[in-house]
């Protein structure tokens, strides 16, 4: 010790600097742990992150127009959309060249359905023109022949849509998701009777909060009871909590239909007891009430389980100590027990909220028109209208909304204040 002077480098037995040797050992350690988690990491990247990124990318991707009609897109660059004049013969000649190839490869109808999202009628315009293209005179003049095939080619609006959506990337889907559109005067809100997505986003957030709060109100006492009861009775209670959890979602949702409908069990009972008259049966399903009741029931276990596992760790001696120091039951609970259960509330609330914000099957079945969520529209655009770009834009917005809420939650409650047990 005493012969070590300042500036002298500590070395290992074989003469290498200790610092470097340590760094190498640590690096090796790191690499080894990385190699251990690599299979999972690669799995998650390939099966989870990559598809999501790919899906989100579709919300701006718009290569189909340029790929299908390359010459037309190039020719259209010199055309002035504000001129109120249909493009000249050169553009039509380019369109003929492109369409002849596209029809051969059967791509024109696909482009038609893409552009039909922006302007109704383009789908059949491409289908119809595609059938005519092979019979057109290759020598031209093409403008006449196209106008002859369909007079929509003579409308400036058709060309404006084509030109507006010719770039490889578009903000059209996002504008649509915000109930907006690009008009000649810039970006504007859509007409009142076509706005729907913002309303649905608002409703999804609102209903998810209501569902989370009602899950908390119903779940807290149950979790409290579960944690407080002796093991034998709490196990029985736990089975009662888990039993519906193991039952098919559709069965539970259908059961709520039987219970809640106007000729259903609850209404029949209320009429029988004389609380309500036969003519004024309650409407409890196919509206927001139905969605809230059914989803609260379905998501309740996700609230109870984290609450229970946190409450289980709260030592009963604290409450006892508080009482022996003179606190009444309520003060002991509110000042001593409750603050310790907050991490469980946080975990349960985040879990229920995030699950409910993306739910769609239950709202679809019991939500009627006022109880459906944004996810119902996303599902519609994925599986029915095939407007995947719009579905991706809506999905991106939903993802961003959840992340913003998560950050807000972190600021208010603190994410490290969340515990699952």
């Amino acid at each position, binding site marked *: 010790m005493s012969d070590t002077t300042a500036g002298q480098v500590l070395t290992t037995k074989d003469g290498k600097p200790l610092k470097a040797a340590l760094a190498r050992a640590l690096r090796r350690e790191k690499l080894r742990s990385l190699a251990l988690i690599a299979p999972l990491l690669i799995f998650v990247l390939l099966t989870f992150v990559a598809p999501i990124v790919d899906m989100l990318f579709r919300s701006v991707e718009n290569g189909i127009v340029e790929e299908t009609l390359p010459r037309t897109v190039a020719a259209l660059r010199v055309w002035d959309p504000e001129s109120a004049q249909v493009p000249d013969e050169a553009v039509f000649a380019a369109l003929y060249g492109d369409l002849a190839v596209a029809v051969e490869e059967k791509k024109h109808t696909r482009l038609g359905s893409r552009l039909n999202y922006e302007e*109704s009628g383009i789908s059949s315009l491409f289908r119809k023109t595609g059938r005519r293209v092979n019979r057109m005179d290759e020598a031209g003049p093409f403008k006449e022949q196209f106008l002859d095939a369909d007079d929509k080619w003579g409308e400036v609006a058709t060309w404006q849509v084509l030109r507006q959506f010719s770039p490889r990337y578009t903000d059209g889907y996002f504008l649509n998701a915000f109930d907006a559109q690009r008009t000649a005067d810039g970006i504007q809100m859509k007409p009142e009777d*076509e706005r729907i997505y913002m*309303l649905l986003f608002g409703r999804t957030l609102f209903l998810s909060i209501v569902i989370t709060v009602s899950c908390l109100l119903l779940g807290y006492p149950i979790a409290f009871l579960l944690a407080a009861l002796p093991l034998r009775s709490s196990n029985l209670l736990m089975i009662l909590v888990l039993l519906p959890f193991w039952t098919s979602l559709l069965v539970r949702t259908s059961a709520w239909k039987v219970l809640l409908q106007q000729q259903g069990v609850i209404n029949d009972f209320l009429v029988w007891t004389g609380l309500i008259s036969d003519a004024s049966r309650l409407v409890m399903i196919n509206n927001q009430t139905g969605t809230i009741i059914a989803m609260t029931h379905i998501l309740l276990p996700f609230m109870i389980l984290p609450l229970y596992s946190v409450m289980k760790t709260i030592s009963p001696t604290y409450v006892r100590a508080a009482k022996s120091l003179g606190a009444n039951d309520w003060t002991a609970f509110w000042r001593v027990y409750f603050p310790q259960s907050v991490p469980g509330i946080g975990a349960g609330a985040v879990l229920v909220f995030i699950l409910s914000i993306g739910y769609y099957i239950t709202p679809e079945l019991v939500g009627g028109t006022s109880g459906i969520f944004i996810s119902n529209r996303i599902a519609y655009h994925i599986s029915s209208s095939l407007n995947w770009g719009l579905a991706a834009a809506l999905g991106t917005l939903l993802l961003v909304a959840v992340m913003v809420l998560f950050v807000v939650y972190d600021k208010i409650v603190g994410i490290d204040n969340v515990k699952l047990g």
Partner: protein
Amino acid sequence: MKLKTVILAGTALAFAGGAAVAEDMTLVSWGGAYQASQKAAYADPYVADHPDINVIWDESSAEAVAKLRAMNEAGNVTWDLVDVVASDAIRLCDEGLAMEIDPDTDLAAAPDGTSAADDFGDLLVSECFIPQIVYSTTFGYRSDVADWGGKEPDDICDVFDLEAFPGKRALEKRPINNMEWALLCDGVAKDDVYEVLETEEGQDRAFKKLDTIKDSVVWWSAGAETPQLLADSEVVIGSTYNGRLFALIEEQKQPVKMLWDAQVFDLDGWIIPAGLPEDRLARVKDFLKFATDTQRLADQAKYISYGPARKSSAPLVGKHADLGIDMAPHMPTDPNNAKNTFLYNYEWWADYRDDIDAKFQAWLSQ
């Protein structure tokens, strides 16, 4: 060492066995009674003749368009034959996801020699589509409603008449059919419906008409909902597919009757996914030729009350396989039922579906 030998032997056996077992053919359909009718009428007889073929059913028709598109993008189409409604067939054809067929070479001629193209006639609505059945979306009503004072609805516009026929209605949660019925009952002539619906004013007019009953409507999204709602007396009139109502009335004996007025005909049939390898394509074409011949389509009507798509099948329609009742009077195409029918315009809806659907959803949520 020993374990390795066992594994190797096992693998070899599995391969050898694999060569001998049947080749799989995946058919996609709707599940339920409809798929059962297809199985009984054509898949089972075909397999009886071709024991080397193993038919696998996939109940994915409702999401067939989206799934086929995803399969196509992934470059691995696992389906051989897909059952879809005509409008979906047109979309699939538009997207290049379904194969075009030639009715005269790919399909069997009628027994009297009429070519398949003539036998199917107008029902070949798309180059990719091989129709099987004609079904209709129509109304059923409860025949025991006290408030109606013994009257029964016999006109499509009675659905919009809350004074004479009070009670809740069940309508499908989409614009198709509802918009047409609304305009018909707002005084638009049958031939002008789509022309009117093309304009903003026409759409507003349809929504205004639907507004008159909006508060009394339960909106359904699955065809099984209306029969359930009718059976529970949750609604007094409801639209759904005629086969569902047949099951409710004849099999479950519920006090429900058919309102055939202004029923909307639609078609359901097969498409072959684009890009199948040669061997699978040959196999599927052989099955298709068998499954859509005159006798097979007539056989299907024994199990479900949908009309065969071939003209030559109509006279061969017999009795229900279990109930033993004549099926002809329950077909949507029966002259007594088809006094006033409405033809759904596929091309028109392919163009306007996106636009009107957005408006319809906005209208619903107002």
